[in-house]
């Protein structure tokens, strides 16, 4: 065996790939991990994550109460509208019970409640300092186990014998392995690939995560004729600050005041009910809504009453003492915006504003009504944030079985090729999103891939 031959070759250094590498190395495998990004940007989109959503019966580490399989699965069904592989999903929920402990034992730290045990979360365990802390801890642990890590190592060629993996190539370097784990994420940072489905509007998309998720490995796997899940035109998009960087803006670019004001497009007209529902739901729909507007732009308009009532956005808003002046500052027709705002104000019905519940304070008689939290926009100064669609992740992936093996077109699994993380998330999460579930998928399927790869490589 030469030095470039391993029991397991892992492509991708996010949570899923790291966990697969660690599990196999702990079982006694020689492991090589190929990370496409340079060291400073390692960890894929795990670097931008914040928490994990484990199922638990009774208090678990930093989590309180119980979050059992039925409640969790109901949540999953609700967000995916049924687009999930039930046996795979239920197995994942069951196995997620040990995810927090598994990570803690390998040096990952979780955030203790800030205000004593009264402030314990129930569904989501937060990484202390964020996902990069998890990435750092797992790389440290992997290296202590002897995992050979290569940075700037984007796999650009795969060598298969039928459905059996032989080697992965990074430029001129060949890494052959008895087994292979594909864990290199989705293709949300590949604008050309997105353009195939979305057209030129992608020029106005912002990519919230790592610029290294270009989907190269996913493409190679699909070219190998493995089965896919999901379609290329599906992506998770939220409305974020239009001034955010093209790539890698992460969490801080969110703008969380849509329900406190109105949202207009470039024609200064409203286009959707801003008061439809609470944060998690509206958060996930506004990306697509804005993507359908002219130039993929929206402007959220609030007044003084809303200040301090929402998470502060990263960039300061435009500010003016009149709606007309504000319109000029953000490049809208001032007469149309003034009319939109006054029509909205005039249509507000009776009721008390209460942002903590669906308060029923609504407009009546507008083409697009606001059905909750319809408070007037009348107290100067007025503020505007410009929104653009921010792409979080893509759903297209490879199909796997319960052992994490990728499936060929005839439904047979490859004997030695596995997938974990975002590249196979579509198996469980066919649509929508549930906070922390991406990390749960990466964690559980990373472990499964590592275990099964070790079992195969070591002939156990």
């Amino acid at each position, binding site marked *: 065996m030469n030095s470039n031959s391993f029991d397991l070759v892992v492509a991708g250094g996010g949570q899923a790939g790291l966990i697969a590498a660690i599990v196999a190395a702990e079982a006694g495998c020689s492991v090589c991990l190929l990370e496409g990004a340079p060291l*400073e*940007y390692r960890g894929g989109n795990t*670097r*931008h994550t*914040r928490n994990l959503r484990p199922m638990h019966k009774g208090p678990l580490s930093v989590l309180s109460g119980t979050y059992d399989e039925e409640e969790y699965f109901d949540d999953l069904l609700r967000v995916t509208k049924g687009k999930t592989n039930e046996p795979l999903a239920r197995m994942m929920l069951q196995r997620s019970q040990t995810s927090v402990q598994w990570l803690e034992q390998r*040096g990952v*730290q*979780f*955030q*203790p409640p*800030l205000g004593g045990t009264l402030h314990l979360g129930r569904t989501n365990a*937060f*990484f*202390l*300092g*964020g*996902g*990069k*802390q998890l990435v*750092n801890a797992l790389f*440290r642990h992997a290296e202590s186990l002897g995992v050979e890590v290569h940075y700037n190592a984007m796999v650009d060629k795969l060598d298969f014998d039928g459905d059996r993996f032989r080697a992965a190539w990074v430029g001129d370097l060949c890494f052959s392995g008895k087994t292979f784990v594909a864990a290199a994420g989705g293709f949300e940072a590949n604008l050309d690939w997105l353009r195939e489905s979305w057209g030129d509007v992608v020029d106005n998309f912002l990519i919230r995560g790592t610029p290294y998720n270009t989907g190269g490995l996913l493409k190679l796997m699909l070219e190998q004729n493995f089965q896919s899940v999901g379609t290329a035109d599906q992506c998770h998009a939220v409305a974020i600050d239009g001034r955010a*960087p093209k790539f*890698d803006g*992460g*969490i*801080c*670019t*969110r703008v969380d005041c849509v329900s406190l004001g109105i949202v207009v497009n470039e024609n200064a007209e409203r286009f959707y009910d801003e008061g439809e529902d609470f944060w998690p739901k509206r958060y996930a729909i506004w990306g697509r809504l804005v993507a359908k507007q002219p130039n993929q732009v929206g402007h959220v308009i609030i007044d003084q009453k809303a*200040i*301090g009532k929402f*998470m*502060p*956005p*990263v*960039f*300061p808003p435009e500010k003016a003492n009149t709606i007309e002046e504000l319109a000029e500052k953000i490049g809208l027709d001032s007469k149309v915006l003034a009319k939109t705002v006054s029509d909205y104000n005039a249509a507000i019905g009776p009721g008390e504003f209460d942002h903590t519940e669906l308060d029923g304070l609504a407009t009546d008689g507008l083409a697009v009504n606001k059905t909750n939290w319809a408070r007037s926009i009348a107290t100067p100064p007025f503020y505007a944030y410009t929104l653009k669609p921010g792409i979080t992740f893509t759903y297209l992936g490879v199909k796997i079985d319960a052992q994490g093996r990728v499936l060929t077109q005839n439904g047979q699994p490859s004997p030695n090729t596995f997938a974990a993380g975002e590249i196979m998330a579509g198996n469980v999460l066919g649509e929508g999103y549930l906070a922390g579930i991406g990390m749960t998928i990466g964690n559980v399927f990373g472990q499964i891939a590592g275990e099964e790869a070790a079992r195969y490589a070591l002939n156990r």
Partner: protein
Amino acid sequence: MRSTANVNEGARLMAICNACRYCEGHCAVFQAMELRLEFNSDNLDYLANLCHNCGSCYHHCQYAPPHEFKLNVPGVFADLRKESYGQYAWPKPMGKLYNKNGLWVSIIASVVIALALALTALGSGADFWGVHEQEFYGVLSHNAMVSVFGTVSLFVLLALGLSMRNFWRAMNLPAPWDLDWRSVRTGVKNALSLKYLDGGNGQGCAYPTEAPSHIRRVFHQLTFWGFMLCFASTSTATVMHYGLDLPAPYGYVSLPKLFGILGGFGLILGPLGLLWIKRKADRNTRGEQNQGMDITFLWLLLATSVTGLGLMLLADTQWVGLTLSVHLGVVMTLFLTMPYGKFIHGFYRLIALVAFAMEQEEHQARVGVEQIPIKNVG
């Protein structure tokens, strides 16, 4: 309110951090930040002085350089903190000593040590190289030492007190007798235990490398308590001298000697350890404008303990004159530079931590806000 490059950079960082908040579990800085929407020199001085420069938020930051946001809270706050020391220093012109602080302190040290040598040598004449029954008092009389150090101490106390008052006012704290004592107790406890070097969950902070460690806390405690024991040694000796009419020299099983020896070892191990891990730590987290302030201070503490223990060992030899002059020079430098060097950090840190405890108690920002809502009394 001032608007310097450091203040503007601090405000830029806090706007990003306040929108992200992933680090809220690490320390008081981020929990205090979350009570605010706008950042100005007052509340940035507050946040910078809450920061213990532990590095956790830097190593765990998704926006750390080379990311285009170039977030480096410990580095920028180190610079801002140093700027704040100069800002609140009394008398105001002396605040300039914080520019090129390492150089100034080194110059003062050389001059003062040389003066101490010259004066004791001149004053004691042939006795400088002699062996004395009263050990060091044979070289320099007790009264001479007391008059020099007494005068300096009075000035130092005044300067420290008035500098602290300036910072106290910027922190928007009420008069000391109107303080909420629960918060004061919490603040003192968090300062003495170095709570915010624990990483936020008790596992330790990311210093000197990204792996959680308690090493910084250990070496800092050795330094702090070493210093306090040395201080206790001097204080008990003063009480014994004046109150009990028991002048030095003291035997090895006396309070001044026991405190001094224990403290001296702490004050050797602590600064050495801090200097060592400082070399290993990521350069970015140090800031760009420290100009030797931290390092000179650590060397000065180390010189104090080494010369002090040296004096104890050599007091009955002919080297007593030389060792004594050097030790006195070092201690004098330490004294003189207390209000104008790294020493001040302990006081501002404590005041900031008390302000933080009050804010947490009230669930409301107090520092750097234009109006303070009046609390119901009664």
